[in-house]
């Protein structure tokens, strides 16, 4: 069975919010209607977003790391929001594992948002229905756009290539290999929701320099003991700007 998902590399994310704005742009322009922006230029604006980038500080000064953390619907393999829906508006697709809301069936009771531990669902105050990340289902199957662009909007927008998209059940896919080889993990695994979206952990970035890297042990100069001629003192051709 296919399970489409995002894999987000926390080691790469720079927290630029490009995925947030591109998500908002794509999903507010779709056939399902705009994402509400209430009082956008007033004192207390609020609005519907499917994707947020949050920032956490890990560690104690001075040994701290800033972690930028994008969060959208995780498309759980055992989604707790689906069975609680009284109307069947909330469902998980058999074909690709995307968790979706049928906006024409949703009665806006908000029960599914209570049943999501991740806060991935946002009630749209204008459309009066529950909304959430669709993994750009209206884009990834659109055969009228070039195949390379048939990816969620956030994935294409990411300038750091921190977001990978694919079928995590296909062991040869880019996402499955990333999860396996780079210790991909799930959020709040204590609830048994088995989120499909995975996160790749931060990695220790360090350079190990051995003395041999700075000074070749097999340097021929050391073999025959001959030192090079004195350095050129007269400006040569390369010393003049052209």
């Amino acid at each position: 069975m296919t399970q489409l998902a995002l894999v987000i590399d926390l080691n790469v994310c720079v927290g630029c919010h490009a995925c947030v704005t591109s998500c908002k742009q794509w999903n507010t322009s779709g056939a399902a209607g705009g994402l509400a922006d209430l009082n956008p230029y007033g004192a207390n604006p609020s609005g519907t977003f499917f994707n947020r980038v949050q920032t956490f500080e890990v560690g104690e000064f001075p040994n701290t790391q800033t972690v930028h953390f994008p969060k959208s619907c995780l498309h759980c393999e055992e989604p707790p929001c689906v069975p609680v829906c009284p109307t069947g508006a909330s469902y998980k697709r058999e074909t690709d594992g995307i968790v979706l809301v049928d906006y024409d069936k949703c009665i806006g009771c908000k029960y599914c948002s209570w049943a999501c531990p991740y806060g991935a669902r946002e009630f749209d105050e204008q459309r009066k229905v529950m909304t959430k990340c669709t993994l750009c289902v209206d884009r990834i199957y659109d055969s009228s756009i070039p195949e390379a662009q048939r990816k969620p909007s956030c994935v294409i927008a990411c300038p750091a290539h921190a977001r990978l998209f694919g079928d995590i059940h296909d062991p040869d896919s880019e996402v499955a290999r990333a999860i396996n080889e780079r210790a991909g993990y799930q959020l709040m695994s204590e609830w048994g929701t088995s989120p499909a979206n995975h996160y790749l952990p931060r990695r220790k970035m360090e350079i190990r320099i051995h003395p041999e890297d700075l000074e070749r042990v097999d340097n021929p100069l050391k073999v025959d003991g001959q030192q090079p001629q004195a350095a050129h003192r007269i400006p040569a051709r390369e010393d003049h700007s052209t």
Partner: protein
Amino acid sequence: MKPAFSVILLTTLIGAGQGLFIALYLTELLLRPPAHLSAFLLAGDVAALGLTGLGLLASFFHLGHPERAWRAASQWRTSWLSREVIVLPAFMLAVALHGLAHLLDLPVTGAVGLIGVILALTLYICTAMIYASIRFLQEWATPLTVLNYTLLGLASGYTLATALAGALAPELVAAYALGATVFTAAGFVSRAASLLRNARLAPKSTMQSAIGIKHPHIAQQSQGFMGGAFNTSEFSHGVSAGVLRSVKWSFLLLVFPLPLLFMIGGLTAGSSTLLAAAFALQYLGLLAERWFFFAQARHPQNLYYQVTG
């Protein structure tokens, strides 16, 4: 969680209605034939129907699309909310038929009443399981939630029955007052148990599990936006710890000891006004109790929304 007043009204009103109907049915069962009580039982049915009807009406104000509410009956296989949506009108129908049988003096009141009682008890379970079945709202995810909804509903139903009997059928006042006392006392034990349990509850989700980084010091610097959002309004009660505490003590006084004192006063003085006041106080207390029930639940999603910026 942010307490939704439509849901507070729904659960308290139908809880009292169900309790009242159970009280009426037991009267009928134990004091048969209840020929001279028929008018009182009919009045009780009308009151139970009125309460559940008001509750149903209140629930519509919780919905974004109330015109699609009929769809909510479709997922009874998996959703307790859907089950409640089916059982509540079924219970109301049983109450209406029970009242009709008394009005027309048909000999089916016992059978209809029994079905009504079964539906009333089922409805307590459905309503409470809506909350108790969400496993990560740990304050709710306990059998005590079902017990509380049932006992507090029965207590308010019996208190209302006492008040109604005080006005319409004085010979039943003592029996109903006894029932009200028993259920109020049992409700106190069960609600106090859940308060004690919740006070010692350690959240299963932590900052570490929320973002998957195993470090003892994690502090949010930004939730990703400056303005408001559904996530910052729906999942927090927005009042101070002091207000929360005073609501708790208010409902502990209003639901349990005060109605019993008023009831004793009403019984000894033979005053139906005091008996009615006992129900009014207890209902007011139950509104506070339900508000506190919602406010006390800590949703794990709040871990992601701690710092504006």
